């Protein structure tokens, strides 16, 4: 093998390794994207079953129930409600009537099993995803009242 061929071989190997790395990164990326759905979207069946996704909205007043360390509550965007079950300690700023974002899977029975309930860092702060869900629901209701 001449020096030129050898150099070519190494360059080819380098390019192959880089391509493999890129493919690997993009594949990992693709399979770990977590999409966000509003309670209305979930109720309309737009959310995937069996895949992890996020929902956001308000914790419905009076919906919080504790059994041992497992908690149940309802996330609402004022239009539709989604029951959520979560086992673990809730974040400090979790409160009924306040915004919340939960990540987990939707069961066939319509119960959302959260693996993570996201903490806020400030009491006045509304998670943008929860705000987005509320805005959309409000917009949807407004559109419905306009259209008879």
């Amino acid at each position, binding site marked *: 093998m001449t020096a030129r061929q050898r150099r070519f071989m*190494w360059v080819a190997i380098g390019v192959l390794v880089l391509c493999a*790395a890129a493919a*690997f*990164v993009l594949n*990992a*990326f693709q*399979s*770990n*994207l*977590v*999409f*966000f759905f509003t309670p209305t979207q979930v109720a309309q069946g737009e959310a995937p079953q069996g895949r*992890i996704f*996020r929902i956001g909205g308000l914790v419905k007043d009076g919906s919080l129930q*504790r059994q*041992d*360390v497992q908690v149940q509550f309802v996330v609402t965007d004022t239009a539709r409600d989604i029951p959520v079950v979560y*086992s*673990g*300690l*809730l974040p*400090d*700023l979790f409160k009924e009537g306040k915004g919340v974002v939960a990540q987990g899977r939707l069961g066939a029975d319509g119960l959302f099993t959260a693996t993570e309930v996201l*903490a806020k*860092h*400030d*009491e006045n*702060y509304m*998670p*943008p*995803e929860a705000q*987005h869900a509320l805005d959309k629901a409000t917009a949807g209701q407004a559109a419905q009242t306009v259209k008879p």
Partner: protein
Amino acid sequence: MLAELGHFALILALLVACVQATLPLWGAWREIAAWQALARPAAFAQFGLVALSFAALTACFVNNDFSVSYVAQHSNSLLPTVYRVAAVWGGHEGSLLLWVLMLALWTAAVAAFSFSLPQAMVARVVGVLGWVSVGFLLFILALSNPFERLLPAAADGRDLNPLLQDPGLIIHPPMLYMGYVGFSVAFAFAIAALMAGRLDAAWARWSRPWTVVAWLFMTFGIGLGSWWAYYELGWGGWWFWDPVENASLMPWLVGTALIHSLMASDKRGNFKAWTVLLSISAFSLSLLGTFLVRSGVLTSVHAFATDPKRGVFILMFLAVVVGFSLTLYAWRMPKVRMGQAVSLLSRETLLLANSVLLVVACAAVLLGTIYPLVIDALNLGKLSVGPQYFNAVFVPLMVPLLVIMVPGTVVRWRESQWSELLLRLRWVALAALGVGLAAPALAGEWSIGAAFGFFLAAWVVLGSVQHMVLRWRQPGQIGAAYWGMQCAHIGLAVVVAGITGVKSYEVERDVRMGVGDVVTIEPYAFRLQGMSEVKGPNYRAVRADVEVLKNGQPIDRLYPEKRRYFSTAMPMTEAAIDTGFMRDLYVSLGDPIDGPTPQWSMRVYYKPFVPWIWAGVLLMVLGGGLAAVDRRYRAASPRTETMPTGVAPQGGA
């Protein structure tokens, strides 16, 4: 009065920065010595003025001057004095002022410790830093002035976010900013060298200590942030792949690549083009980090700003910096002579591999961090990238990095023999393999992941130890930089061992406890002895008294708290931790649970090896410190540098 004084000082600083950014550069271009000489006094004057401004703001905080809007938003009369000082950088405006103060400090340091540098070079470096300073001072004065008055004055302040009322948070931002801003010096050196059209060994030599110092502050800052998240957020995690963490990790990764690449440029004259690109990237990523953290596009404890103009300004500034730098690079770089050819197995090649791995890791982190923001900005939906992505990508990239770390310090420059390398490292490899196989069995259950992690850590530690022993036996002086390198490498290995241990063997229990209940994680038992009410300076708390027993013997008492701050009524979990050499025991208190007898939800964690993560970070910081004080960098100008002939002695950092 004080607020106005600070404001005026800041305006004067902007004027001085304008002078600093123009005349010395012009003087360097036209070879006018008198104008070049302006660089140093301008740098000192700017530092003095910004420091005065910062002191004025601090005084407003200490004096509880709630007629200053920023003070009213971030302080409170009940806040202890030390936190009032820390509250100066507890919000958007003050933290930017801290950014500028750090920049002025770095500039003044360059001016003060550069007497071995040619006058024109100093003028260019200080001039470039002047431009950065102009940008940030304009930003503060136009869009985020911390001295704005609030009329009529507030009766009391809104208080500092309770999460930030913590000793770790007093020093975390200044350290991290020292790192972020420190990369501006490496950037300025690279730009100055491009302007001069002279990318020689001297440029790389001058850049090295500055880059290392910036890197060590950044390392320390990231470590502090991780430590704070671990004990303050109350759920015992130490790294979340949160965009804010990624924002600091990205410049750190590229900065690490830069340190190693600068070494090749300094010693061998190789990879100059690459090194310059890394210098530009490290600083650009610092700016990107500032944008991500401060613009409000991310929502976290760090994001204060809601004014979209602020985000746009930083983004524009970033675009100008990157655009200008790359244009200059494209224009000047073809003139730079390429380095010498090297063989496949040489230190140059391994250093290049190190750079590529770190940059690819950074690119992967960047993709995961930016993608959701771009998708959201384009209104294509809302999504997030889970930590699984980062773990899946980052860990496989770090494995080869750790593997080549040992041969990287052993092989010679230019050309080395495989047989020699294998002969030298075979016992190290075997011993590391032995540790890898045995350590998990001693620590708990054997698993392939744990074995591999401990093998990598042992490989780096044993390789470094062997290298140090062999080097010690050789005649000749050993520079501090050499010890620094080994110390930092061992530090990284300790971090890896810590992460491996905690990931493999941690036990987390979310439980419900009443007084007298016991939770057991062999060989430890946690007994809730009682609950009490305590009152702090600006909060009231429920405190649990938890006795920790090991094999039935009491070893410690932990007092986790649930605090409620008066000013905001915001609840806060204060975890209690018993730290040992090999493990942490972590207890945090949750909410009360209604029932016939009062009970509380609690988190009880056994976290083996977790203190190693921060011990490793400290070793890396120490290593950086040793490397930076090496006498070589303080020697007179290395302008008559000749390449060492033949084979360099083993080692050298």
